[in-house]
């Protein structure tokens, strides 16, 4: 289920695209990092940019934020080409890299004020912005502490705050919750939701598929530099919906090997927290075989519940499909 905030009210026209990427390609020597990548992100959306390690996610962010030149294709942020107007585009975006890279010797407040100065904010405005962001990110009591002395979670928070100091339209977040403990990651996700509710468009890369599912309205899955899937989380899940999932509880103990042998239509069988999770394509055959197995083993089905395909399962399925495709150079 998509639990992110909706960018448009039902019946209203969709918001305009704020990020438009078309035919984007980039190679490092003989390694083709991005191949004809296409996607758009509408204003106010959160887009999850997913992919395995080395898929090209960080390369995309570096090109979109003007840090890296592209080989081919078009990249526009709010209608401006990042290669043609890098300074203008950099005013429109805030970037949170995958490492918290603020100045360790400067205090939290000084870091924010310095970055505000680089973005051309007046002294009074950057002081006000720094104070507001320190409050928003619950760092008010650490304002005078050097950035280098903060915990990993607090460093992450201040790095996100730093990306917002100039009030950008678009926020790029490269694996923002990696390495955080559960409460800190959860608090950070709530902050990202709040930032999005204030109208910011968020471009998020993450390896946490549950995070992506919880936050995002759009998902792009990048594999070996190619867009393997692009759509809403529901549409991505639907794409692999030929797989059906059931959660079942038997009246007695069962042996997974016996079930697999008796029910060849069941493609996968895994123990879940209460019973078993079954994956199959042919519903009729799978259920018939399962009931026949219960009959022969003297078991009853205590509970049966349908289970949807999660984004993680859909991602793994799409990854499997694409990795098995021949003819890739990287």
């Amino acid at each position, binding site marked *: 289920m998509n639990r992110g905030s909706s960018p448009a009210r039902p019946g209203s026209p969709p918001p305009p695209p704020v990020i438009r990427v078309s035919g984007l390609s980039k190679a490092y020597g003989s390694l083709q990092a991005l191949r004809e990548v296409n996607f758009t992100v509408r204003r106010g959306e959160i887009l999850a940019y997913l992919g395995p390690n080395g898929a090209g996610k960080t390369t995309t962010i570096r090109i979109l934020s003007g*840090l890296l030149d592209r080989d081919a294709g078009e990249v526009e942020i709010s209608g401006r080409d990042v290669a043609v107007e890098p300074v203008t585009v950099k005013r429109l975006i805030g970037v949170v890299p995958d490492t918290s890279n603020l*100045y360790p010797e400067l205090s939290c407040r000084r870091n924010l004020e310095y970055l505000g100065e*680089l973005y051309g904010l007046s002294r009074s405005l950057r002081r006000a912005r720094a104070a507001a962001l320190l409050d928003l990110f619950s760092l008010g009591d650490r304002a005078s502490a050097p950035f280098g002395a903060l915990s990993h979670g607090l460093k992450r928070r201040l790095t996100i705050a730093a990306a917002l100091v100039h009030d950008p339209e678009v926020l790029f977040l490269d694996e923002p919750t990696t390495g955080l403990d559960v409460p800190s990651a959860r608090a950070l996700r709530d902050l990202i939701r709040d930032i999005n509710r204030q109208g910011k468009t968020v471009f998020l890369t993450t390896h946490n598929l549950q995070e992506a599912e919880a936050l995002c309205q759009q998902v792009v899955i990048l594999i070996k530099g190619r867009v393997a899937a692009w759509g809403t989380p529901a549409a991505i899940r639907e794409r692999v919906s030929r797989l059906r999932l059931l959660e079942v509880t038997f009246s007695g103990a069962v042996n997974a090997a016996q079930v697999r042998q008796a029910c060849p239509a069941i493609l996968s069988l895994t123990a879940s927290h209460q019973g078993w999770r079954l994956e199959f394509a042919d519903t009729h055959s799978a259920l018939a075989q399962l009931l026949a197995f219960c009959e022969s083993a003297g078991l009853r089905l205590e509970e049966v519940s349908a289970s949807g395909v999660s984004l993680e399962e859909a991602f793994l399925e799409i990854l499997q499909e694409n990795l098995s495709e021949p003819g890739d150079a990287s």
Partner: protein
Amino acid sequence: MMPGRQVLAISRKDVESYYSKPPLITWGLLLPAVLMLSLYVKDPGTYLAIAPGIIAMTLLFGNTSMAAIVVTFEKRAGTFERLLLAPITYKTIILGKTLSAAAYGLATALVLTGGLRFLVGLRLTQPQVFALGLTLGSMCFSLLGLMAAVMVREVFEAMTLMNFFRFPLLFVSGVFMPLSQLPWWLQPLALASPLTHTVELLRLGITGTSSFPDALLPSLAMVVWLLVSWLATISLFRRRASE
């Protein structure tokens, strides 16, 4: 257009973060001070002949090292990327970094000169020429340090790279003897060296005499060096800054 506010912000932050730290100040001051006082103790009558060379050598080693260390350190820590992500041009970044390194060189040289005046009664014959030599030399050497820093990833690589030109410059530039006493085959190389012209401007400023009749030629040579190193640094930044 070069946004001056951002240039000053970068410089001020670097001074605050790096150049105002006690180890850097003492490093920049102690070596030349000890050298100069040793020469003075040996022969109070001739130390002035070597003072301009030592001050210029301090600028060369201090400014190239500091500019290179700061940028290489920031590249490794990831903080340099903050500058590249900000809505400023490479020229703004280069000028900001150059100004802070040059300010460090100027400050140490001025403190050194003040100390010598206080301790051994050093007097400047042409203070404005001395200031011009310090300013042009420190700007030029800072740019050379930035060029080295942007070409490499590690501090030791930057130092190794810079030693390929710093020590030869020291050899050919008349730091320890007047240009006229250099072998004839070394003199064309000496005229092409920015260190030579810095030494000669400082010599004019301190003693009022030089291998050149006045400050015009060495000043022009330093302006050409500044321009060339400025353009080369911009070109290198465009190609390699985000690597």
